[in-house]
């Protein structure tokens, strides 16, 4: 319930009214050029990166901001990072001594979770862009996931403060006037378990922001600063209009969505929370003020990621399928309660910030479904089902590390069945090819296959969950960050729920360990197998309404078994 200590966050508002006669043609041209520039940052990064988390998994965001920290363009990459980048730039610049302390050729590194919104591994590299080495015109920025940045483990689900989570580099100039700061670089190399990969990824991030700088300057020089500003304002107005039109169609009202975290990673009890979506004309307020206090375990979500989750959920729904800019965010207000798990403060642990953020996306859709069930899909597997691995190679003694999210079933919707893919919060993310994994890591995949019957039944069924079995040739350690292991993904409009996420170990003698979800530094001994079961999604509409031919096809192709059909679709078997 909104109370006096509620904090409201709004997108950067417009600085000056655009002249009434801003040319819609040049605006479209500038918009296009900026998106093209952001794509160029992404391509440069992917082609030069060292860690699979960046080049295969695409666990990063690349974006361009103007001097007022408004999003000009972002390349298709990690959506959950998308809405946080202005916070990253703002915090990094502030730490570095403010705008006046910036000089041409400087590049900043920022890993403070309360500035980036992420865990410290998500390193923001930021380049202030100067026109003619004089006028600051904006920033190019990449937030990318490093495989290790110190911390008590390469990946943790049980930290109790941020200092256990990784090294914090607060807005430090890793390049000063074009020269790399070798002392700082040595410091960074000394605080990671995989220095070669991190060195390679820093290099790739620097190459990326430099490429973005050249392209941004080209656009500014082509149109001149004044015309550029006009077009940018008009571009923001355009994005804003698109989102506002969407919400005008949704009836005004307050819609409450319910969510729950399995636990906070430290204590056993579940952590329920609710998010309210309040539609008022064309403005939408996403209200997290009625969520629990900051938790003693790492499921706290710093404000930037709370804002980002709201932006992802809303712009995917209302953004017309296009890459958003700052304008798309203007109709969105985010209400939080400082001190709560969606607006914690340092040093509350937040290593698993992404998990509550991701849950809140599903919860926002759950709330909107109460006004318009046809507007959103049913719940997906609802998780990244991430595993992070490491160890030391037997022959060479070299440390290795790898990590990946895994696909889940997508929720069914009024338009049809769901498929199987990464969670929407990681929509551009890929998981590694088995053959690439096996060429690098001391393991063999026994299985990467659909699990029949794992889908939520309904008039439309969800996508299937996936079974992945990792057999170890050498001892390894794993941290598993899996959420929604108790709560099955909900169906919508009478649809049934699908399989929840889980994992277990199968030892060399054929015996099984306990099923688990969140686990830190679990040893997976040589000869044993980790079995990961990712969730299905929720179905849409009553199962009794599913077309007989669709049930028959699912049986024929082996997506469902006869037992499942008998339970959910008896009408099709008569």
């Amino acid at each position, binding site marked *: 319930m909104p109370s006096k200590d509620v904090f409201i966050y709004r997108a950067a508002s417009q600085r000056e009214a655009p002249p009434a006669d801003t040319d819609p043609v040049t605006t479209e041209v500038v918009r296009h050029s900026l998106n093209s520039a952001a794509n160029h940052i992404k391509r440069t990064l992917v082609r030069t990166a060292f860690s699979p988390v960046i080049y295969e998994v695409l666990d990063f965001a690349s974006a361009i901001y103007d001097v007022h920290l408004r999003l000009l363009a972002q390349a298709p990459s990690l959506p959950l990072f998308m809405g946080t980048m202005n916070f990253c730039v703002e915090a990094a610049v502030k730490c570095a001594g403010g705008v006046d302390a910036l000089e041409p050729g400087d590049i900043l590194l920022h890993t403070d979770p309360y500035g980036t919104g992420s865990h410290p591994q998500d390193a923001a590299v930021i380049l202030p862009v100067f026109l003619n080495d004089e006028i600051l015109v904006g920033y190019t920025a990449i937030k990318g996931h490093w495989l290790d940045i110190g911390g008590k483990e390469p990946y943790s689900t049980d930290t109790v403060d941020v200092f256990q989570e990784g090294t914090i580099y607060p807005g430090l100039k890793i390049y000063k006037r074009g020269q790399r700061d070798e002392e700082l670089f040595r410091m960074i190399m000394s605080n990671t378990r995989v220095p*070669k990969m991190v060195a390679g990824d820093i*290099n790739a991030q620097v190459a990326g922001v430099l490429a973005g700088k050249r392209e941004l300057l080209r656009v500014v020089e082509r149109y001149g600063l004044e015309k550029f500003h006009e077009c940018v304002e008009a571009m923001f107005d355009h994005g804003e209009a698109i989102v506002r039109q969407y919400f005008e169609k949704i009836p005004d009202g307050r819609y409450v969505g319910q969510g729950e975290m399995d636990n906070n990673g430290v204590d056993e009890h579940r952590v329920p929370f609710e998010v309210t979506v309040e539609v008022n004309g064309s403005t939408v307020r996403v209200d997290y003020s009625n969520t629990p206090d900051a938790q003693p375990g790492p499921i706290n979500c710093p404000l930037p990621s709370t804002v980002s989750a709201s932006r992802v959920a809303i712009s*995917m729904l209302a953004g017309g399928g296009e890459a958003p800019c700052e304008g798309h965010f203007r109709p969105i207000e985010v209400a939080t309660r400082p001190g709560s798990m969606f607006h914690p403060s340092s040093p509350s642990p937040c290593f698993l910030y992404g998990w509550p953020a991701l849950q809140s996306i599903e919860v926002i859709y759950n709330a909107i479904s109460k006004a318009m069930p046809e507007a959103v899909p049913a719940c997906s597997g609802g998780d990244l089902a991430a595993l992070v691995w490491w160890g030391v190679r037997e022959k060479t003694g070299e440390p290795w590390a790898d990590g990946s999210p895994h696909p889940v079933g997508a929720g069914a919707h009024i338009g049809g069945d769901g498929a199987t893919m*990464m969670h929407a919060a990681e929509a551009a993310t*890929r998981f590694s*090819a088995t*053959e690439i994994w096996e*060429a690098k890591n001391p393991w063999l995949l026994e299985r*990467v296959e659909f699990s029949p019957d794992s889908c939520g039944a309904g008039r439309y069924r969800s996508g299937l969950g996936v079974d992945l079995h990792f057999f170890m040739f050498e001892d390894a350690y794993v941290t598993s960050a899996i959420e929604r292991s108790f709560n099955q993904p909900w169906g919508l409009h009478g649809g049934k729920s699908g399989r929840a996420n889980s994992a277990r170990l199968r030892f060399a003698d054929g015996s099984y360990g306990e099923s688990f979800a969140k686990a830190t530094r679990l040893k997976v001994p040589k000869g044993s197998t980790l079995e990961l079961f990712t969730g299905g999604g929720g179905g849409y509409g009553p199962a009794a309404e599913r077309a007989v031919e669709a049930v028959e096809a699912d049986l024929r192709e082996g997506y469902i078994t006869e037992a499942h059909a008998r339970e959910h679709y008896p009408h099709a078997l008569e």
Partner: protein
Amino acid sequence: MVSRIAVDVGGTFTDLVFYDDESATTRVTKVPTTPANPENGALNAVSEALSQEEVGASEYFLHGTTVGLNSLLQRVGAKVGLLCTAGFRDILEIRRGDRDEMYNLFWAPNPPLVPRRLRMPILERVRADGVVHQPLQSEDVRAAHEVFVAENVDTIAIAFLNSFANPSHEIKAMNLLREAGFEGSISLSHQVSGEYREYERTTTTIIDAFVRPRMTRYLGELGSGLKNAGFKGNLLVTRSGGGSFTFGEASERPFETIMSGPVAGAEGTGELARLLSMGNFVAADVGGTSFDTSLIVDGRPRLLYEGSVVGLPVQTPWVDVRSIGAGGGSIAYVDAGGLLRVGPQSAGADPGPAAYGRGGVEPTVTDSAHVLGMLGDGQIAHGIALDRNLSSGSLKAIASNLGFSVEEAARGVLKIVTATMSNLMREITIEQGTDPRELWLLAFGGAGPMLGTLLAKELGTRGVVVPPHAGNFSASGLLGADLVQAAARTRIMRLSDDNLLMANDILDSMFEDLEVRQNAGGAISRSRHVGLDMRYAGQEHSLTVSIECDASGKITWDADEVRHEFTQDYERAFSVTMEEAIEIVSMRATVRSPLPKREREKVRAVSERKHGNVRTWSFESDDWREFQVLDRSAAGAGAVISGPAIILEQTSTTYLDGGHSALVHETGCLVITREESNA
């Protein structure tokens, strides 16, 4: 005896270009495409354009086809059965987990080309290093065969994990299928692609099995039709990776022809660039619905080693041609947020732009250009006369929506469409470390010469070149296609002198295989080329670097020289280099045999038709001006045409703005430069 016939089958028209060696002249014909049986259109073009003697005297028939591509687009192909490693039955559906449209919450992939019941898991397993982890269970293959027989499967694809490291299980499974009596074709993943990444390799293998019967039948019909027409020479088809190979080889490796159509334009640009020796080029091929571009450095388009079509990865050499939905038929509209947008929806050939008067009502790029006078009096190819009332009428709605006049709206449409195209050209150019200002822009396709100078200005190129027969340029691009065979094999190893020796052993066996395939006949010279995919140890993506080799295809550089070349290429692409060790990922072997040289036709001025002036918008002076209208054939080699002018020819129209001039090159190309840049 090197007369040759080139036929390019497009969506609407089938283009023929005939090069007559006797007279060193070329002749052009256009006939309607016959979509149900495209070979008929091709044969019609031949019988319409050529005498029996000319057909009989021709040494080469060169062909660009979209049969494979259309088969995938329409999903009409063979019923394919797949043998896959047990536990990996759903590789096709799980893919890599990403979405093609990341901001679309409801996105779902197309249904897989092979349904799940025809994807048969086989107990077998090879490790990444080639060691057999689990022997092949023959029973599983025989059981799968029974399912395939009961389901009337046409062709079978076999794609086992890590088969690039050890293909024995794929070969054994094929033998078992043959023993069991399967007579259809069988595609083996390690033969289709020697590279890793199972989703990509499996998909490519299935595409091969899917398009094969249709492609084989098509090429067979076309070949025998040509034989009946008296043709006795070599039958060649363009590869997605550039160059051409025989119909026989194409029937064996049909997945290599998927991009056959669009590649011809890039290959033609490459050949022209080598001929003109003016430096590097960017190709701007503007058709009715799509815009295709490629960058030509040192006379060749860049090769990629994976392509994608209708959302499916194809793991085969792929000329880097980028395409977007922007062309003469692209439709303009005002979006929900009040911005003017152009494409990707297109009015296509039917109904076509509003000005065609065939029932189209929505405003297109062609309508906008017509309103601005850029198409002269509106007599365009194929006897179509554009109607000014219809073109300007179509723009009224968006004009009033934006508060613009019809002409302002038309200019907006052209600005946006040229900016969209320029951005794509910029991306493909700067990605390769090339500055667009050092390039010439080659404008072709029906609408390319109309937009050439606008594109050049937006991109800042040195100038524009409009080739002869610009509207049929893709077909003429086929005339110079070399015969090419290529193969790749993944073997990850550190760059060292010892490992280069091992690479040479592997390359040797690859070249041996290729020579067997390169059997097109004729005493043509062959050259061998080697590329290495390399990266810094620890990276995933690699750069392909051309490596110096001797006539037998043996690498002659030592490790230091290879390292130096890699470092230079890397710096050019990414502006940084690293201290890390370098790895070889894959070896690439190519055998290339150029076709005999052909003489270039000399351009002579022919009789001049009289045209009046036409009032046309000049983007240069931002105002209306009187443009002279003339026939391209009226200007002989060495002549200079000064803008403003509209230059007409059979299949396209060149817009030459004021402040520009066009020199008629001896090759017949119009070389267009801005006047101040001549000074």
